[in-house]
């Protein structure tokens, strides 16, 4: 004791150093943790937020350690929901289906299945974000119990209240050591989001500045419009393409991924409505739609949305001078094709003239090669008593471009013929 005291007294400065070493370490840790944030659009997080807001089960596919948990923390803060994380791989099936509790007379009263504490707390709170992490490393029986939780929202005798939202995470098939796979019926119930890290974000974050995503806010004024738009989009596509309604994945490559069925189209419909009400970009909608019905049908839906965005041919014909034309060449061509088709459907002199005026505007504001095909078709629609409008002079540029292309094609054909003749001889 004395020794100790003596020692301590003698080396008082060193003791002080020892205490302050921890303080210094704490200081260093504070510095390390001191990071700022900067606003940065994050379409992955935006898509996740919308899907969770739409109360659809989301499955995040991503390699371990790329910030899925960090994203969930941000999401929970944005939606103002308490976050409960459950690491599936360290649990047993009974943790999700309920632990049997033996009473006095099991034969008489039965064995109740008691839920785990986190579930009780979640139900008591009435709201929260439940994150089921590492689904893919859990044994099959645990996965089976978890899927009941995701799909039926039951844990033992408890039923999760509607205010609880569920997100699960899994490793991609190629990196999963024990091959977690979804059967097609299960895959069809999830919104699949591929979670990847952005190199720039990670490097900048390690340098002290993490991104702060501004998350979508639903605009109460746009709700009826959003529902109407979503219904028009999905019904419009499926009316014309009945084959897209239900397509079980046939190839091994697409197994375990999203595929179209009436159920997943219904999910798509609500996702479109949510994205519209939140004013989200096409990029976000693309992630959501392709993650729900799969790439092919999802892209078809997006393409038909693009067509819905294009100006209506009748509006353009009514006012060619004030027409707002898209900038992109391929969209311009789609618009012109639509206009010519409209004139063909109802050929009238005034509409024909309006179409020419429109073509002139296109030539004057963009590439001339786009109008060659529509102009040729339009010319063929002329009726005997229709005079050629004077404005057609201004299409001369397009005509000369067309002539040069013809000449080039002739030269190619001549050369090919010469080569063939030589070979024949």
């Amino acid at each position, binding site marked *: 004791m004395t020794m100790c005291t003596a020692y301590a007294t003698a080396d008082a400065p060193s003791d002080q150093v020892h205490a302050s070493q921890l303080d210094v370490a704490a200081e260093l840790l504070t510095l390390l943790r001191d990071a700022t944030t900067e606003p940065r659009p994050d379409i992955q997080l935006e898509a996740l937020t919308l899907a969770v807001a739409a109360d659809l089960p989301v499955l995040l596919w991503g390699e371990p350690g790329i910030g899925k948990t960090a994203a969930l923390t941000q999401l929970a803060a944005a939606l103002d929901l308490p976050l409960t994380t459950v690491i599936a791989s360290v649990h*047993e*099936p*009974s943790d999700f289906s309920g*632990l*049997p*509790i*033996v009473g006095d007379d099991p034969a008489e009263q039965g*064995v109740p299945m008691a839920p785990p504490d986190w579930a009780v707390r979640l139900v008591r709170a009435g709201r929260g974000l439940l994150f089921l992490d590492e689904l893919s490393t859990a*044994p*099959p*029986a645990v996965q089976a119990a978890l899927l009941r939780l995701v799909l039926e929202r039951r844990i033992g005798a408890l039923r999760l209240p509607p205010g609880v939202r569920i997100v699960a995470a899994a490793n991609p*098939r*190629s990196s*999963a*050591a*024990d*091959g*977690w*796979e979804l059967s097609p019926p299960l895959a069809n119930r999830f919104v699949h989001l591929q979670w990847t890290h952005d190199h720039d974000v990670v490097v900048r974050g390690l340098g002290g500045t993490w991104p702060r995503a501004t998350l979508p806010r639903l605009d109460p004024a746009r709700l009826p419009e959003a529902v109407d738009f979503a219904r028009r989009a999905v019904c419009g596509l499926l009316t014309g393409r009945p084959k897209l309604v239900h397509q079980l994945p046939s*190839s*091994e*490559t*697409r*197994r375990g991924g999203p595929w179209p069925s009436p159920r997943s189209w219904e999910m798509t419909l609500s996702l479109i409505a949510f994205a519209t009400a939140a004013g989200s970009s*096409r*990029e976000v909608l*693309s992630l959501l739609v392709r993650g729900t019905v799969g*790439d*092919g049908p999802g*892209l*078809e839906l*997006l*393409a038909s949305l693009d067509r819905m965005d294009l100006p209506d041919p009748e509006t353009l014909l009514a006012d060619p001078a004030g027409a707002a034309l898209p*900038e*992109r*060449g*391929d969209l*311009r*061509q789609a618009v012109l094709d639509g206009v010519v088709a409209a004139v063909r459907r109802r050929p009238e002199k005034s509409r024909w003239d309006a179409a020419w005026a429109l073509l002139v505007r296109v030539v004057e*504001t*963009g*590439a*001339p*090669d*786009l109008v*060659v095909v529509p102009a040729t078709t339009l010319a063929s629609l002329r009726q005997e008593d229709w005079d050629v409008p004077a404005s057609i002079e201004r299409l001369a540029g397009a005509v*000369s*471009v*067309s002539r*040069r*292309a*013809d*000449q*080039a*094609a002739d*030269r*190619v*054909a001549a*050369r*090919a013929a010469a080569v063939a003749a030589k070979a024949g001889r």
Partner: protein
Amino acid sequence: MTPDAPGTLDLDKLFAARLQAARARPYLATALFALHTVESRRVPTMAVDRHWRCYVSPVFVDRTPVEELAGVWVHEVSHLLRDHHGRSDRFARLHGLTGPAERLRMNIAADCEINDDVFGDGLVRPEGAVQPGSLGLPAGELMEDYLRQFRLGPHTQSLAWLDCGSGADGLEREWDLGADGAHGLSAQERDAVRFRVAQGITARPGNTPKAWQRWAEDAFHPPQPWRELLGAAVRSAASGPGAGEDYIYGRPSRRSAGVPGVVLPSLRRRPPRVSVVIDTSGSVSDAELGSALLEVSAISRAVGGRRDLITVVPCDAAARIAHPLCRAEGIPLLGGGGTDLRTGFAKALRVRPRPDVIVILTDGQTPWPETRPPCRTVVGLFPRRRENPSDDEDDPDYEPDTPPAWARVVVIG
């Protein structure tokens, strides 16, 4: 769409060439018109970036005839449609390649993939276009295959000027306007354009060359490496409920102490038994068979199958590859003879104890069992395309049976 800035760039000539390209390849018109032209004096010829901008050198346009420019248009847009920049990035990451020399190599390989079938039939091959033949390589392969087959050296010296831009090899150029620049296409818009082109091709397959049809089929579902697919299929078959590990009541759970009087299940691991049935009757080459068999045994070992739990059943007398391989691997050989896969199934199922998983390696030219076998089945299928239909003149309608729906089929190679 085009900048009004005065310059020596002959836009009319450039657009005449694009028109000719669109007429010669109508299925690419959407993609050609979606490109946004940018005049640039730093570009040697024409180059694209990943945001679908096309940088054009005025001097190059001046000295190149319209018909050759048309070929260049189609060439450049092919880089974008075939996602060469994304594939270059993935290849570079996978193989740890860095530096501009490697990117030049990717540009050359990408050019080879395009140039072997894009010209002719109304399009002239531009002067100096790289052909696989000029590097001593076979035609008709993918960029990734070419990349494994050649190095930069004296024979590629003449190609060092070649530059199709960041859209071809993923390396940013100093003239690139970048993601934030004007008139770029977003990722979703790029996908939409590629999708519309692919849709146009699959809707009218008669008018398009084979290579473009194959591209259209795979545009949004690039074929996955068969090793990963086979691995996933075997793993999931071997570790699903009933095989491998699961909960059993044979041993008390570690939690039983907490709940006296209750029998809880505990986790127990039982290594899966895997039977590999090899069909050697077809024209399956030794190399194909060898690599597939090695893969299967490696996968089954990874899921916990011990050597003695893997059985190999050759389904033909001439199982010359199976014998040495299995001897080297210490896998016991059972049975032999017979060219009908149904006998192979029967033989594999007769083994006691019964296998949990049967893996079949075959080229599919065989009858299949009528009923589903009592265990999980994975079929590794060696693809056999009929290259020349006239070979089957006797029976043009002959179609070999496809593997049944209850098997999980992975196409190998």
